[in-house]
């Protein structure tokens, strides 16, 4: 399966799962919103240019916004993590050239610990920005803090489950092949 086809299918699946499964769950508490859709941005291939990465993330966020009737909210957060992603990957990549040898960020290509940090940082950035935009319209500081922490917690759990359920095989690629 080519990268384009695979990522298009992921695009549709992430949106549908986020809206028709996760958003339909009865809320446990006002702080807890199960977000997992932005994993799509984290899984995009290394080889994508910065600009196309930003553009795809923007369109992805905007698509979710079509469903939730909050135009721009998720799009803004997605573009931010797409921008930050490049820097985080550069810092965390374990050895020189790993981004040429593997297709996309995953526990296999980056190692478990760096990958965990990568997910944690981007999840936090995403939620801080998203909740901050909500907080501009209402809520107190405690609401902001509580929601960021609780939502990050539940997101990390969901991402862990997703990674375990849908284990992505990453082939080691060399120049010779």
């Amino acid at each position, binding site marked *: 399966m080519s990268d384009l086809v695979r990522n298009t299918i992921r695009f549709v699946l992430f949106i549908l799962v986020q809206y028709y499964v996760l958003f339909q769950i009865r809320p446990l508490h006002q702080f807890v919103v199960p977000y997992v859709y932005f994993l799509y941005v984290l899984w995009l291939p290394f080889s994508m240019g910065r600009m196309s990465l930003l553009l795809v993330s923007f369109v992805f966020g905007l698509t979710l916004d079509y469903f939730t*009737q*909050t*135009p*721009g909210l998720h*799009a803004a957060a997605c573009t*931010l993590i797409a921008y930050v992603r490049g820097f985080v990957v550069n810092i965390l990549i374990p050895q020189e050239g790993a981004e040429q040898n593997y297709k996309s960020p995953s526990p296999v290509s980056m190692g478990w610990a760096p990958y965990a940090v990568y997910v944690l940082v981007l999840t936090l950035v995403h939620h801080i920005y998203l909740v901050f935009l909500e907080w501009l319209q209402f809520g107190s500081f405690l609401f902001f803090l509580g929601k960021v922490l609780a939502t990050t917690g539940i997101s990390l759990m969901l991402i862990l489950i997703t990674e375990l359920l849908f284990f992505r095989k990453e082939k080691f690629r060399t120049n010779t092949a």
Partner: protein
Amino acid sequence: MRNIFLFIRRYFNFVFFVVLQIAALYILFHYNKFHEAVFSGVANELTGNIGGKYTNVTYYFHLKKTNDDLAKENEELRNKLLANFERPDTTQKIVQDTIPYDTLGHYRKYLYRSARVVNNSVSLPNNTFTINRGENEGIHKNMGVISPTGVAGVVINTSNNYAVVMSLLHRQTKISASLKKTGETGKVLWDGTSPLYVTLKDIPKSAQVVKGDSVVTSPYASHFPPGLLIGTVMDIVDDKTSSFYTLRLKPATNFFNVQFVMVVENLLKDEQAKLEEETNKINQ
């Protein structure tokens, strides 16, 4: 000049990022302020279609409950039929060749249109649902929407075949309500904390409220006929610094499984609004 171009080329990624951010934030704040969707005309058609297919599945599981609700509502409506008409003074009569008249000379004030919910949210900070009727079927902005069990929300956006309704669980909801027993009027809001409760404010402490009292739409609510159930009092917050109660209500509509709704059109609303506006102009 050359340096500017060099600068832009060098930081092109960052500039592009900023442009996308500004675009996103612009749509976000523009939309929330005016309730105008920059893009939802097309978007409603698309997401409404997908939502329709999704509800077709869940619809099946709620059939029994929905039928019960409908039967109950029919019974209630049959008893209420006369209440939808306003009877003018019969000694004077203006001859008018339009349909809002019926043969007895009663004005129709409220017109009901049924609709099916095709998309629904309860867990977001501002909750809306989408119904499968739009401009083509006579739905316009600011019409009231009721469910078989009580008030559901107000239409905020329409496309040709779909309309988006902000439910009671929306931060900009404000509905004039009164206590059924004693008639004191206040307004119903949602504070965004729990989708199980809405808040009723501005009820003076002179009112005698007990838990379980019914709260209905007031005669001043322009979107809804008076006397429709909004919810029942669950909790009374006695704020010592204020001379008003803050009441927590359990909404009569179950927003978790709402399937069928009615859109209420107040046919005389424009006339009333126009008269009030003209009067305000004279008073100024």
